[in-house]
């Protein structure tokens, strides 16, 4: 048995906490007990639902907003309601689409990968692009996300339909974003009118203004005119995981996955551990 840790680490200042206005806010630690003063260490951590490698359910803003981010999702479970059999040692198909900096995986590539994969009834699916490594995330900062490969909407729809057909429940990827960065960060860090220098995320003045521009709600926080690839997938899934790392260490086409988010009562998203078992 070989265990492979696919989890993005958590550290203050990590790029994933600095690049978007709302959905992922900065990681911040306060050492309220420290070695010199107290002889021991205790840390207060400010995280977010999308810190590190997150797992997100359709009602991502739960418990305060139980509305799913896409209408009519296939599943309605919150984090603590996901059956444990879905999270522990669940059969998973690896879907290989090698994608480099800025590449948007298209429908043809997705179709070819689905044809080549050993994707069976009930499997979870792990889309491996090769982008996710800890070293790259440490070195690139926010560019790790800005330049991430991603999934074009039509490719996402194709995969989502296949997942429904095969009764597949969880989607994971080592892309830092599922949506193309130009869609996800539209008129924030990319798009027709990106903000320079890049503002801090919520609760910055700029993030609050963006909220105003969006009509006062980020329940459906999608500023781009293009449809959401992530939205296509989360509608058909119990949950989606992204920003995984080290998937290149997986040698088999089929693995078992351990997927363990924090057990937040009525929670919608949290930092998660992803471990592959071969």
């Amino acid at each position, binding site marked *: 048995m070989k265990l492979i*840790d696919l989890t993005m680490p958590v*550290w203050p200042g990590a790029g994933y906490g600095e690049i978007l206005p709302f959905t992922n806010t900065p990681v911040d630690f306060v050492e309220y007990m420290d070695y010199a003063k*107290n002889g021991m260490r205790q*840390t207060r*951590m400010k*995280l977010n639902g999308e810190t590190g*490698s997150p797992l997100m359910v359709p009602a991502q803003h739960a418990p305060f907003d139980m509305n799913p981010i896409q209408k009519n999702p296939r599943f309605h479970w919150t984090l603590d309601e996901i059956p444990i059999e879905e999270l522990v040692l669940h059969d998973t198909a690896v879907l290989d689409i090698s994608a480099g900096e800025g590449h948007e995986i298209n429908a043809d590539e997705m179709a070819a990968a689905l044809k080549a994969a050993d994707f069976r009834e009930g499997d979870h699916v792990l889309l491996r692009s090769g982008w996710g490594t800890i070293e790259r995330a440490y070195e690139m900062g926010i560019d790790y996300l800005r330049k991430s490969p991603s999934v074009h909407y039509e490719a996402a729809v194709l995969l989502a339909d296949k997942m429904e057909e095969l009764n597949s429940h969880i989607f994971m990827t080592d892309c830092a974003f599922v949506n193309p960065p130009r869609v996800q960060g539209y008129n924030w860090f990319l798009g027709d009118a990106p903000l320079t220098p890049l503002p801090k995320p919520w609760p910055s003045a700029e993030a609050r203004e963006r909220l105003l521009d969006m009509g006062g709600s980020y329940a459906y926080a999608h500023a781009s005119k293009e449809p959401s690839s992530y939205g296509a997938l989360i509608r058909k899934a119990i949950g989606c995981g992204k920003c995984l790392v080290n998937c290149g260490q997986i040698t088999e086409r089929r693995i078992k996955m351990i997927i363990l988010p924090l057990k937040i009562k009525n929670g919608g998203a949290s930092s998660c551990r992803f471990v592959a078992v071969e």
Partner: protein
Amino acid sequence: MEYKDLTLPLDHNWMPDEVLPVAAHFYLAPKYHPDKGIILGSETGTCLTLPAAFADFRETTRLHEVTIEKLFLRATAILDIAAEESQEITESEMKRAIEVCKVARGNAVLLRTGWGDRGTHAKPGSQYIMASPHLSLPAAELLATFMAESESDLLLTDLALIGWPDKHLFPEWNSLFPRPGPWPSTEAQVYLHLYTPQKAKADFAVELALARSGIMTVKRLIHCKDLLSDRLRVIVSPLHIVRGASATCRVIAVEGAM
């Protein structure tokens, strides 16, 4: 195979472990609040504590360095000591339990007292922490020796507190009435400002005895009562904190042949 979740839920309405100033308040700020997100302490709920949490062992392994095999699907033996409310587990009780515990070399050890099955973690008030059974120092030292001989470096338990910080923390904090909130209440900040390493060494002698033997500890498990020792494996899944010394975690028992 059968899976059992042994994790205390993280409830934004109320957490049973926020009794002492060394705990941080867990909350999920509403989405339009400036603190939007997840705020928690490194030992909120069910948590993994490394020896590096203590100054004497700060040069030792940190969370991101713990090899995955030490935490995921690790074979585990159960050490049974049924304990009553507020009971201090003695050296002789530990000795009797060790004598009948079948632990293979390198196994993790799960100390099961029954405290996590009584439902106190789901009731309001401070009973879950303040009435937890706990280890005496001689019992902890005996357990540390036993685990070292078994080449075991992972101890899991359903105790809310492993030791009993009654030299300074309990008498001083409990003298405040009504009891103040955990960190970052003003009272907790003032209290910790005056809480010296010498006080911590006295209060956390049991935890230090385990840390001295290189033992990682997981506390506040629930629902352990039906676990069978035969072919038991545990998954301890902490937040993957760079250079962290302790973290909230999810713990799953895997029973049966893999």
